[in-house]
């Protein structure tokens, strides 16, 4: 056997051992905040950016990155979504099993059509979700995510504050990790890859 091939075999065996070891004590080397067992499973009743009613169940089998925002947000929301797009690109083909769920906290302005245009400007694996204020409040409360609407200004414009965290769910819909917008791309790539690998 050629030395290179042998080295590769040893590396593979080592990796397999490492993975088994990890599975045995249930600890994976996450870099983001591990919230396993501390947050409820992914569940909601909302409308997707094609105008179709969807529930959390519809995303079982996918690794989900959940993020709250609104389309009249020209700075932080696009920055976060652009980062998530870059992360998915770096993970490669495997990331086709991931979905970015961008949930509107501004249902008055965010129709499915606007959400569709917005999310598709970032990544084809991003889904825009909107709903009634009650439905959206139910989801944000579920993840202890807060949002407020500032009083309207004279020109009808208003500002929205929203939780800036990104929640990661495994393929079974279990909440696993929490990332802040300041999380490094490297850490997100690392953990998303691990989540895609292990959550089958």
């Amino acid at each position, binding site marked *: 056997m050629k030395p290179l091939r042998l080295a590769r075999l040893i590396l593979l065996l080592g990796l397999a051992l490492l993975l088994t070891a990890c599975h045995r004590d249930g600890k994976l080397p996450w870099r983001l905040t591990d919230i396993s067992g501390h947050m409820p499973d992914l569940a909601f009743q909302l409308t997707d950016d094609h105008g179709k009613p969807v529930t959390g169940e519809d995303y079982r089998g996918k690794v989900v990155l959940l993020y709250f925002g609104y389309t009249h947000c020209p*700075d932080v929301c696009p920055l976060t*979504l652009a980062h998530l797009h870059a992360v998915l690109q770096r993970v490669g083909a495997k990331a086709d099993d991931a979905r970015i769920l961008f949930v509107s906290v501004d249902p008055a302005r965010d129709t499915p059509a606007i959400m569709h245009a917005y999310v598709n400007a970032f990544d084809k694996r991003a889904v825009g979700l909107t709903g009634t204020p009650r439905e959206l409040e139910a989801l944000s409360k579920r993840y202890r995510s807060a949002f407020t609407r500032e009083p309207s200004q004279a020109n009808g414009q208003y500002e929205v504050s929203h939780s*800036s965290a990104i929640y990661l769910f495994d393929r079974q819909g279990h909440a696993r990790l929490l990332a802040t917008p300041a999380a490094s791309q490297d850490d997100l790539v690392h953990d998303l890859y691990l989540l895609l690998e292990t959550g089958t």
Partner: protein
Amino acid sequence: MILRSLPLLLAGLLCAGAAHATQAGHVHASDAWIRVMPANLPAGGYVSLRNDGDQPAVLDGASSAAYGSVMLHQSSTDTGMGRMRMVDSLTVPAHGQVALAPGGYHFMLMDAGKPVQPGQTVQVVLHFADGSTLGTDFLAKPANAL
């Protein structure tokens, strides 16, 4: 002919001198770009400003023929909440610099007259507290630009 142009020439020279004595005259803008959003949604504008003058330059607004309104804003994600607030002015210290960059200070550009396409250049006029202005070309980039 020469005599007739002289006052004009003098006026021109005076203006040039005056321009340099203004706040805008000491500010150099670089890396100016706009994150273009679909469906005529508000876009973010970013630029680095360097002041080579001995006095602070106070940016107090901006305008553009391509947009109905341009506002100076600041985002923050303190305490896990994403927030945006209007800012009256932003000071570029004497011999210092300030960056309008994603996640912090930025221009919010609203109501584009015609949809702005990535790759286009859009002029934005920066307004300073002494009334001086600085026209700056902003490069339009796609929504997912980093």
